C-alpha cells in the first residue's frame, strides 16, 4: 500500500520538464500500443510461459506438479500421437485445397462479374457466422446422416464406391469418416478463404485484363498470366487463414468423425480435460505450434509473395 502511494509523486512533477509542449506527440505511438500489448501479455504471453513450464513438469494431480525439466514428455507425446499429427495436417491440407477450389471461382465472380449482386453474395458468404459454429457443424451431422438424401444420392451415383476404395468413407456411411471431417472443415473455414481472395482480386485493375487480351492472350491465358499471379497475396493469406485453424480444430473431428479420425486437437482436448495429463497436453500444443510455424514459414518463402507489388 505504502509503496503504491509513494511511487507516483516523483514522476508527476518531473513530467512537465521532460516533455515540453512541442514534443508531446512523441509518446503517442507508445500510448496507442499499450492496450494491445497489455492484452497480449495477459492473454497470450503469460499463458504461453505457464504452458511451457507445465510441459516440463512431472507429478500427479494428488501430489501436485513440479518443474523437473522433464523434456522426455515431448518425445513420448510425439511418438505416441504422430498419427494424429499427420492426420491433422492431411485433413487440414485437403480442406484448404477444397476451400481454394470452391472459394476462388466464387471470389472471382463476386469481384468481376457480380455487378449489383455483389453485396448480396458477400452477405451470403458471411451469413453462416450469424449462427454458432457448433450448431452449423451439428447440422452437417443431419445432412450426412446414414440413409439421408446426400448419402443416398452418392450411393446411387456410385461415388461412395470410389471414396470407400480411396479410404475416405467406409461402406454406406459418410458420417464418422475422413470425408465427413474434411467436409466439415471445408464448410467452416470457407469464408476465411473467400474474403482475402476477394479483397486481392477486387484490387486488380480491370484494364490489365484488357491489356492482356489486347496483347494476344486468350481468356484462359489472361487468368494464368495476369489474374492469378496478381491474386497470389489473397491465395496465400486465404490458405493460411484456413490451414492454421483447421490443423488445430477438434470440433469437426469430434462431431463428424470417429475414433479413427481423431485429429491432434482432439488428443490435446482429451489430455487436458479428460485424462488430466497436463504436461503431455502442453507438450503436444507446443509441438503443434512449432510444426505449423515451420510449415507456414516454408510456404511463404516458397510462394514468394513478398515480391508482389
Amino acid at each position: 500500500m505504502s509503496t503504491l502511494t509513494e511511487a507516483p509523486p516523483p514522476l508527476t512533477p518531473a513530467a512537465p520538464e521532460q516533455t515540453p509542449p512541442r514534443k508531446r506527440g512523441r509518446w503517442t505511438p507508445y500510448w496507442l500500443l499499450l492496450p494491445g500489448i497489455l492484452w497480449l501479455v495477459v492473454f497470450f504471453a503469460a499463458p504461453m510461459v505457464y504452458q511451457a513450464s507445465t510441459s516440463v513438469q512431472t507429478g500427479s494431480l494428488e501430489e501436485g506438479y513440479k518443474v523437473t525439466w522433464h523434456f522426455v514428455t515431448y518425445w513420448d507425446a510425439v511418438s505416441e500421437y504422430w498419427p494424429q499429427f499427420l492426420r491433422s495436417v492431411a485433413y487440414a491440407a485437403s480442406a484448404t485445397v477444397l476451400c481454394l477450389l470452391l472459394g476462388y471461382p466464387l471470389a472471382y465472380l463476386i469481384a468481376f462479374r457480380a455487378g449489383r449482386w455483389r453485396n448480396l453474395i458477400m452477405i451470403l458468404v458471411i451469413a453462416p457466422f450469424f449462427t454458432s459454429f457448433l450448431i452449423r457443424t451439428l447440422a452437417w451431422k443431419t445432412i450426412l446422416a446414414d440413409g439421408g438424401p446426400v448419402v443416398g444420392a452418392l450411393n446411387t451415383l456410385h461415388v461412395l464406391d470410389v471414396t470407400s476404395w480411396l479410404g475416405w468413407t467406409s461402406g454406406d456411411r459418410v458420417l464418422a469418416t475422413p470425408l465427413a471431417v474434411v467436409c466439415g472443415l471445408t464448410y467452416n473455414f470457407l469464408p476465411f478463404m473467400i474474403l482475402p481472395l476477394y479483397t486481392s482480386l477486387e484490387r486488380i485493375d480491370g484494364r490489365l485484363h484488357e491489356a492482356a487480351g489486347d496483347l494476344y492472350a486468350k481468356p484462359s491465358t489472361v487468368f494464368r498470366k495476369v489474374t492469378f499471379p496478381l491474386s497470389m497475396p489473397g491465395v496465400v493469406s486465404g490458405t493460411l487463414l484456413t490451414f492454421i485453424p483447421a490443423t488445430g480444430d477438434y470440433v469437426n473431428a469430434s462431431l463428424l468423425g470417429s475414433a479413427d479420425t481423431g485429429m491432434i486437437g482432439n488428443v490435446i482436448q482429451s489430455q487436458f480435460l479428460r485424462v488430466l495429463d497436463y504436461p503431455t497436453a502442453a507438450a503436444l500444443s507446443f509441438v503443434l505450434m512449432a510444426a505449423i510455424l515451420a510449415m507456414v514459414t516454408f510456404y511463404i518463402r516458397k510462394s514468394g509473395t513478398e515480391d508482389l507489388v
Partner: protein
Amino acid sequence: MTTNTTKNQTDGGGDVRLAGISKTYGSFTAVHPLDLTVPQGSFFALLGASGCGKTTTLRMIAGLEEPSGGTVHLGDQDVTALPPYKRPVNTVFQSYALFPHLDIYENVAFGLRRRGIKSVKKQVGEMLDLVQLGEQARKKPHQLSGGQQQRVAVARALINHPKVLLLDEPLGALDLKLRRQMQLELKRIQTEVGITFVHVTHDQEEAMTMADQVAVMNAGRVEQLGAPADLYENPRTTFVANFLGTSNLVEAEVDSRSGDDVVVKAAGDKLVLPGARCSAPAKTGGKVLVGVRPEKISLTHADDAGAIPEGRNRITGRIANTSFIGVSTQYVVDCAACPEFEVYAQNIDRDPRLAPGAEVVLHWSPAHTFGLDADQSVLAGTMGDAGVAEGEAA
C-alpha cells in the same frame, strides 16, 4: 531496322475502315453511325472533348467494345466479330496498364510470348533500345517514372508489329514539358516503324502537332476530317472553329455577291469573304457567321486609319483589354458586331497608343475570312460547358 517485318505484315493493304459503326448504351448514343477510313501508315488523331465518343471509337477498333452496329475492317479483313486477342491491333492504354508483377523486359515480351515466339531476346532488346529503356529492363513498372512507363507501354504494343497502333490519351498523365517531348518521340517512332497510329486526344495542340489527319469529334459524330492546317484554316462548323484554336465569329447578313466573293454586312460594317470558304448557303438577305482567326488581324490606331490599304475587311472598335504574352500581345476589342473580338499581334513594333480605351480599326485580308452556317451555336466548342452542351444539341 523494323521496316522489313512491317512491310511483310502490311502487304495486304492496311487501311482501317469503319463503316456505319455505332455504339449505344441503353438510350444513350455514345457514337452515332460513323464512316471513317484511316489510310495505312498515317498518324491519325481522333480529337474531341471528354465524352465525345472518341475513346469508344478507338475501343471498338481494338475489340474491347462491341459495336451496336456497323463493321470494322483492317485491310481486307472484317474483324468486327473477332475478340481483341485475335486482332492484329495493339493499344497503348491511358494509364499504361503495365503488368505490375512483371519486369519491363517481360512486359515488353508479353505479346510475343503469347503468340508462341520462343526467342524474344533480340526483339525485346531492340525495342527497348528504340524507346531508350535498355538499362531498365529488369526493373518493375512502379520503379519507373511516368514518362518511362509511357515508353514501356508504347514498346509493349509496338513490338508486335500491329497493323494499327491505338493510343488512348497516352500523354494525358504527363506534365507539360514531358508531354511535348513525348509528342516528338512518338512522331519519331511512327516515322521510323511506319505503322498506322490512331491517337485519341482532347488536346488540340497535341493532335495538330503529331497527326497527318485529324477527325474532330463532337457528341458522337465526326464534325470534320482533314489535315491539321486545313481544319484550322477552313473550319466548317462553329465547333471546329472554336475547339481548334480561337475564332472570332460575327453574325452577318449576306448583302450581295461580287464575282467569287460574298459581301456581307455585320452591324454596319461591310465584310468580304471568298465564296469558296463559305460553307453556308450564301443567299442574299440570309444570315451567315463570319469568322476570322485572331492572328490574321492587324490592329491600327483610329488616327492612322487612312494608311490601311484598300480592299481589306475592316471593323472599328475600342480596346477593352490587353495581355502581354511575350512573343505576342493579345487584345480584346469591343466592336459593334462582336463585344469580345480577339486579336493576337506579334510584338515586332509595339504601338504605345494601343492601350485599353484606344479607338482602333481591325483589318484583315478577305482571303482569311471564312463563313459558317448561322443556325449553329456561336459558342459550340468553347471551353465552357454551355458551349459543349449547345454543340450537342445542334
